[in-house]
């Protein structure tokens, strides 16, 4: 009996604390009013969900400095929206947790080698912007392995990252052929580590990512790619569902970088081009007046020179590719990621 009143006071206090916490909480997705764009502008910083362990795409060095293809796009968007490519907070997003990070507002954008799929688009609260990289799922084996074809993989152990489209493709691929296989899904232990130690016979992932990882190793010649591509993996930045303003900005930064390459605007010549645009298309892209004409504000919610700032920060699509992925010895010419004028499928809508 003696403890009642005390208990009561305590319980009430707890309840009040919980309520207060809840009330202070509200929904902090930053979706009120201006959407993500406004949130980013107010915060003065872009929160970018990335991977931190994939050389060439997103990688963290000993000083916690991030680099890679995806990182460059984060920088481009930060430069476009905030005017400073360094105002990015990189949030390491595991393949398992990435969509929740986006949905919960923990990140503003996901640039994390993420494949567009219908299910993700519809049921995971993510909306995909323009594809930045066209990829496909491939396989790597040890050079001394007997595996040369898909059929050779029957009965083997295959390392794959948990919670990815590759995991799903693998299941489809093998079941369609009636082949048995043993998957070894890794999330915390890196599937690559398991493969290198020969815990499994085959490592599968997006081809470019695989190539990047293998070429970053001290002895890349010890590994061999199978001549197989079993899926389409268009990798695209993801934004929250239903936030079209923000998606427009992200989309047109990507289109802008592709268009810039087509128009011959690079990081080195963008300042000169901005001072004296060679033609109307370049002028429009950089948001500069051409022969006395007015600069049209298309209503993105950021000023007209946002693509120009992105170009100044990271250069055009080709510059990014050369700086990050080509560095690892993965050529671009002749792949899907070449411009459409050069046999690829990069075809950005005109900026006008």
């Amino acid at each position, binding site marked *: 009996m003696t403890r009642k009143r005390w208990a009561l006071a305590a319980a009430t206090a707890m309840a009040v604390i919980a*309520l207060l916490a809840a009330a202070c909480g509200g929904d902090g997705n930053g979706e009120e009013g201006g959407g993500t764009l406004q949130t980013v502008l107010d915060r003065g910083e872009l929160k970018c969900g990335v991977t931190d362990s994939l050389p060439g795409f997103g990688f963290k060095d000993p000083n916690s400095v991030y680099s890679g293809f995806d990182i460059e796009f984060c920088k481009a968007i930060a430069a476009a929206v905030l005017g400073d490519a360094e105002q990015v907070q990189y949030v390491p997003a595991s393949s398992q947790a990435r969509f929740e990070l986006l949905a919960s507002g923990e990140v503003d954008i996901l640039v994390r080698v993420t494949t567009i799929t219908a299910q993700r688009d519809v*049921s995971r609260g993510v909306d995909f912007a323009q594809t930045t990289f066209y990829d496909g799922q491939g396989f790597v084996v040890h050079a001394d392995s007997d595996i040369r074809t898909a059929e050779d993989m029957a009965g083997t152990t295959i390392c794959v990252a948990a919670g990815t489209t590759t*995991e*799903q493709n693998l299941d489809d691929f093998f079941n369609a052929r009636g082949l048995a296989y043993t998957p*070894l899904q890794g999330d915390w232990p890196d599937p690559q580590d398991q493969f290198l130690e020969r815990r499994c016979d085959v490592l599968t992932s997006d081809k470019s990512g695989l190539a990047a990882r293998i070429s970053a190793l001290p002895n890349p010649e010890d590994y061999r790619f199978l001549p197989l591509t079993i899926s389409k993996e268009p990798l695209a930045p993801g934004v929250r569902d239903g936030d079209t303003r923000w998606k427009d900005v992200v989309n047109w930064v990507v289109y802008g970088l592709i268009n810039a390459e087509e128009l011959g605007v690079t990081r080195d010549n963008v300042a000169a081009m901005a001072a004296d645009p060679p033609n109307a298309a370049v002028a429009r892209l950089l948001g500069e007046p051409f022969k006395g004409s007015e600069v049209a504000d298309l209503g993105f919610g950021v000023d007209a020179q946002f693509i120009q700032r992105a170009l100044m920060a990271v250069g055009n699509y080709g510059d990014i590719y050369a700086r990050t992925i080509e560095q690892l010895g993965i050529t671009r010419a002749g792949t899907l990621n070449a411009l459409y004028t050069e046999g690829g499928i990069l075809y950005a809508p005109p900026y006008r």
Partner: protein
Amino acid sequence: MTTMTGGLPPPAPTPLFFRRGFRNLLAQGVYVGVTALVIFYVVQALGGREYGFGFLNQPAAFDVGNQWLINVDGTTNTRFTMYLVGIWATARVVMVTLLLSTVLGVAVGVARLSPNWLLSKMAMLFVEIFRNMPLFVQIVLWYAIVLFGLPQIQNALDLGDTFFLSNRGIAVPWPEPDGGLYGGPEWLTAVWAAAVAAAAVAAWFVRRRRQELERETGQPHYPNRWGIRLFAGGALVSFLALGLPLTIDVPVLSGTDYAEGLTLRPEFTALTLGLTIYTASFIAEIVRASIQALPKGQTEAANAIGLSGYQRLTLVILPQALRQMIPSVTNQYLNASKNSSLAYGVSYADLFFVANIIQNKIGHAVEVFALIIVTYMLMSLAISVVMNFLNSRLTLTRV
């Protein structure tokens, strides 16, 4: 003031607000109201999601590797089936862990109290080192050691063509159902298993009967001895009679993996090793404390009647300490069963790992978490029930 004529004035009725009953009622009312508000807030905050367990019945579209005695693929099976596969994986790890950690824990706990200085200090080191390191790091470390330290499959260590050791796993011989000498059907093994079970039941009854006789007559009737004889005899005779309906499958290397036999995969090994050692270091402390809590007279009395050290331990000390340590050990069992979720660190597809994959594919985090917590609670309940049964038997009989 009233005059002091006789008796006290009738007490003024307590105002309603100061009556204990009323205040209790009021307090509970307020409490319930506030709690309801909090719950309402949470429900409302989570209300924006879509709910329903239908997603569990859709095809899984993923496969998991560490299956044993089952073969489930992701294309034809539902997500729920995959979850059951995860539960089975968890159950395996938990059962092995509880068994091994009890044995190791008791051994280390007893060694800790050994008069042998070196042994006692080594037991202390074991406890101090493994109890104070995060289990997750230990498991991840064991996995790194197993993966990195063991030879790769092409250099697998071959122990007499019977045991193989590599980072694909530890392959050991394992019994397989078989038709036996007379080439009978495979279900002969099941018949034999039934015969063994029958022998066990019979042995149990014989032991009980002999125990009763012993109590009634005061003469030794060797209940344990006869029980074991009956059981072993029954098992052996039926095994021979059925024509040895069981073969031992010896593992062989085939390609880059093992065939036949039983393979303990590195993920399972690392997880079980880490869990066992961690849990054992706690159980060892419990065992030590329970033995130390026994009155010193017990040891002295045992010495006085001339029991050997081993007899003293198994007949006098441990049975008594056991009663004291069961509640604490049960707690450690519950911890170990929940800690099995750290399988995440070694990509062992336990129930939490599978649930996480499902969540990643389709969302429905609230339902998935409900599934997880209900599963763990049921598992805890099962362990508690078994341990309580054990406890009641141990404390009821012969005090």
